[in-house]
């Protein structure tokens, strides 16, 4: 009477455990020292950048800022897995990915400091990357559109969209997944499940056991990865990127991690979250794990990263403010006659 007409499963990818021990046979990437060094360096950069931003914010030199503390493996794994000609469509917590792709650190600082020029990206390598997305979830459809353009032009490229667990509740994200499935778009949706959307834990965000299964609703490939295992993130996202670029369609990769910090510098997570849970999460630190796995000494990398950031901060602080007329300059390709008088204030 009841016939099973479809079955699905969600798998989770893990390569190394919390102590850095392999959980089974590893992919070739796991022995690629240059790659591992890049991943480690990226995560160290993420952490140092975040720390410096919070410091600038506390001293009134930057606006509200959201760190990626504890979840650095996601933006870094993503950025390193992408090809240069792919397009990154980030949310607001992937500064590390943007920097790795080629956005200048001082540009990111300028943006978070309240200056639109921070989104102008002088580096041609990131000319097509989308800027920080403040409205949660909208960017998923923009990514689908970027992918549709690539597909339309028969390009072997893809769009990689990063979003949070909270974003998966937005209809936009579902609509993006659905059209990606219907049109077999070259897009990868990376969901950073850091367990919290401001004060809302993921269990109150959805009744779904996994966020990966949101992909099933659109008929796209879907899997989980241990989001604190940068090798797993890199591997899962890399596989999805290759699938997208080769015409295999879209994938949703849910990366399981944890937001160790407050939501942002304006938030106090102590009001709504058990500190024990945070302590527990700290033990899964992705940086310590990769160091344990690889045996690489982080000190020289840290020093280099620190210098790079300080130099960028100095350039940021030296930026000359825009004149106020700049707010009109890019509304249209040229200022329409009827509003030109407003320029005079």
């Amino acid at each position: 009477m009841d016939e099973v007409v479809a079955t699905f499963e969600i798998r989770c990818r893990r390569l190394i455990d919390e102590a850095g021990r392999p959980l089974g046979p590893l992919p070739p990437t796991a022995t690629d020292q240059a790659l591992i060094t890049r991943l480690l360096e990226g995560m160290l950069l993420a952490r140092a950048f975040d720390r410096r931003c919070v410091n600038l914010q506390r001293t009134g030199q930057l606006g509200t800022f959201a760190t990626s503390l504890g979840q650095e493996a996601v933006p870094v794994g993503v950025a390193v897995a992408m090809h240069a000609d792919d397009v990154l469509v980030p949310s607001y917590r992937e500064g590390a990915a943007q920097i790795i792709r080629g956005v200048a650190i001082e540009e990111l600082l300028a943006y978070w400091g309240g200056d639109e020029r921070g989104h102008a990206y002088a580096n041609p390598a990131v000319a097509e990357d989308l800027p920080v997305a403040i409205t949660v979830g909208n960017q998923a459809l923009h990514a689908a559109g970027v992918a549709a353009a690539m597909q339309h032009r028969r390009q072997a490229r893809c769009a990689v969209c990063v979003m949070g667990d909270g974003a998966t509740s937005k209809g936009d994200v579902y609509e993006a997944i659905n059209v990606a499935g219907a049109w077999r778009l070259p897009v990868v949706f990376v969901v950073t499940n850091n367990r919290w959307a401001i004060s809302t834990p993921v269990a109150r965000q959805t009744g779904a056991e996994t966020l990966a299964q949101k992909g099933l609703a659109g008929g796209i490939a879907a899997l989980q990865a241990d989001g604190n295992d940068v090798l797993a993130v890199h591997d899962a996202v890399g596989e999805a990127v290759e699938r997208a670029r080769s015409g295999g369609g879209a994938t949703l990769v849910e990366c399981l991690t944890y937001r160790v910090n407050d939501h942002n510098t304006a938030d106090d997570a102590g009001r709504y979250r058990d500190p024990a849970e945070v302590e527990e999460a700290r033990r899964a630190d992705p940086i310590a794990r990769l160091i344990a796995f690889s045996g690489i000494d982080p000190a020289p990398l840290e020093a280099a990263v620190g210098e790079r950031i300080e130099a960028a901060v100095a350039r940021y602080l030296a930026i000359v403010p825009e004149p106020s007329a700049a707010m009109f300059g890019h509304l249209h390709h040229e200022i329409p006659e009827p509003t030109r008088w407003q320029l005079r204030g």
Partner: protein
Amino acid sequence: MAAAGLNMVEAITCALARALADDPDVLLLGQDIGRKGGVFQATAGLHERFGADRVRDTPLAETMISGLAIGMATQGLRPVAEIQFLGFLYPCLDNLANHASRLRTRTRGRLTCPLVVRTTHGGGVHAPEHHSEAIESMLAHVPGLRTVIPSTPARAYGLLLAAIRDPDPVVFLEPTRLYRATREDVADDGVALPLDRCHVEREGSDLTLVAWGAALYEAREAAATLAVEGISAEIVDVQTIAPFDAATVIASVERTGRCVIVHEGARRAGFGAEIAAEIAERALTSLLAPVERVTGYDTVMPLPRLERAYLPTTERVVEACRRAYLYR
């Protein structure tokens, strides 16, 4: 209403075909625009001629259509999206107001958003609920978004070509009541019209009638009636709601001293208010009479049985004009 020539739907199809033929980056997307040719046949034949890749049926999701168009536009494509009726545009407002209109500013020119959203405008065709909206003033309030409403087949052709070629986002509202109402000769010459110019479509000396879209026809009829009474009405077709060419209206009112604004949408915060406000600021001393607005009422557009009672009628326009003319 000449028998020859094209009606507005055909003129739109013609402009779309020309844009598709001229520019490989142009593509159409929307619900049922492919084999069906769109609910109003505006894309009839284009799917067959240009293929499913360039005339794309989408899933049924308006937010998606607007978001997808933005992503495509950042890659340099020129998507022309169709939303079946203006009442279904609301889900696009997030993307239009928060992203399409801002991407250029947000990135200081690095990324741009050359997209067009076509949809219907206005009532009077006995349609169900949500099929008769006239919310151009909401769109006009969004900086960075152009809003265009053509009133004749030839203007629809020229304005649509301009909208598609414009490097920034444009919402193109097509008066449903006019789709098949009139025919005129439309030269398919690829010539675009300017996107920020009101069109003085009838000169007159006693008062200025400002209208757009289908309401222009009530303005025309009113002007004809008034002419019989010896009142000479100038008619300005706004056509590009935003940016709004106030200068043309002001110049007219400076000559006539009287102004009546006609539009279908609700009165409160309708676009007529913006026009009246510009006049009150810039042409006050020329005014010989209060600026009147003949508009839809501040209530929900009724279902077909009462829709005629909602829409501005020629009589209401004539009366307002007489009041303005007789005002001392």
